[in-house]
């Protein structure tokens, strides 16, 4: 130990604080440790300093942990609120979808005699063919015409003009991919005008020998096709079904 140092040199300046914080150089640290063994007052001072520093560190940790807990609580509340909002929104969407779906299917049952809205792939009323989706309907009305067991032509007379509506059948696999759906309540149909009248090509997976067809014109813009055991309603742009040219 350096003999020139005073009896309580360890207590001078910031030595105690620096010793506790391990900020003295190595040699001084060793001297200090040796000195502590002989100096009770110094030991007590070191203990007091340690308590202060430990207390401050504990407070620091406690404070940051406390703030972290508060943040987590706030964050959880915020997440919980968002979850609630999302749940309510999802419930609203489900209810709306359910109501519309129910109305859609109820409509089919309620309109027993009239052809209903059909989606039209191309609302062009020119001479070009039209793709139209037919809706399978439930209808109590009895068909007064003739049901043919083969691919057929039907003559429709309005006034003194007679026109022909011919019906052909094609397999679903013949449909252009963009028009294919898995919905059994719709039947895709190609409408074409011919010199004699109208030609419908119905796309459905049905064996040809089981086909039964008939056709009934409800108005100038709608007709019902009896196809096997289904009744399919079509809504067609004005002028297509009408007999007048």
């Amino acid at each position, binding site marked *: 130990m350096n003999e020139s140092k005073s009896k309580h040199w360890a207590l001078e300046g910031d030595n105690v604080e620096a010793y506790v*914080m391990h900020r003295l150089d190595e040699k001084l640290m060793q001297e200090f440790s040796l000195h502590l063994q002989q100096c009770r007052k110094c030991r007590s001072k070191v203990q007091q300093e340690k*308590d202060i520093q430990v207390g401050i*560190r504990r407070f620091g940790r406690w404070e940051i942990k406390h703030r972290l807990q508060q*943040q987590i609580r706030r*964050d959880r509340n915020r997440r919980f609120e968002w979850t609630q909002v999302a749940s309510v929104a999802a419930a609203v969407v489900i209810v709306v979808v359910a109501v519309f779906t129910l109305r859609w299917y109820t409509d089919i049952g309620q309109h027993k005699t009239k052809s209903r809205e059909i989606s039209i792939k191309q609302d062009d009323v020119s001479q070009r063919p039209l793709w139209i989706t037919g809706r399978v309907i439930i209808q109590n009305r009895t068909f007064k015409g003739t049901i043919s067991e083969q691919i057929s032509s039907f003559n429709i007379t309005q006034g003194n003009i007679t026109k022909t509506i011919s019906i052909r059948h094609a397999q679903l696999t013949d449909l252009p991919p963009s028009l294919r759906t898995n919905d059994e309540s719709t039947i895709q149909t190609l409408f074409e005008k011919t010199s004699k009248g109208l030609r419908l090509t119905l796309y459905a997976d049905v064996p040809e020998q089981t086909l039964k067809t008939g056709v009934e014109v409800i108005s100038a813009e709608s007709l019902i096709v009896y196809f096997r055991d289904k009744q399919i309603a079509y809504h067609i742009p004005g002028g297509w079904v009408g007999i007048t040219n």
Partner: protein
Amino acid sequence: MQTPFFFLNNDTKLIDAIRHGSEEALVELFHQNRRAIHSLVCRNQGSEEDAEDILQEALVILWENIQKGTFEYRAKLSTYIYATAKNIWFRRLAQHRREVRTSEDALNVAVEDPTPLEELEANERTYAVQKAMEQIGNPCRELLLLFYWEEQSMEEIALRLGFANADTVKSKKYQCKKLLEKLVKNLLGDT
């Protein structure tokens, strides 16, 4: 410190955020590591509450080490947090076992250990310091925390707290410490 490039994105952002005092970064780390720590603690005789507490402790240690500049980025943050949490939890379990043993066999205390009275006094004093820190107010509280807890230099503290220079900080720190000691004395006198 060289950062492995594949961890650079998220981890370094979080470390930087913590270095700049962002508690949101700690919250993000809390959520990211909750499941892993929950599984660790619950598999080892702990409860969900223990798991949360241990994770918070691990995050405080991470915070402390980043602020002190002693944090070394050698593995992913999640690995660091997992290892820290594991250490804390097993130490706590061991301490609990020791306490049980000690209470069962109180006479077998080593002679060199501090006496219960000494331990009690030390605990009382550190508790009083904590209480005094609550009372002392700013800027003393912040200054003492930066110096003793985050181990910042006088120059860094001057910069962070807006003091003119390191000497001003040194003088202010002296005053603050004296005030803290006075508060502690009062608190210990009161009890």
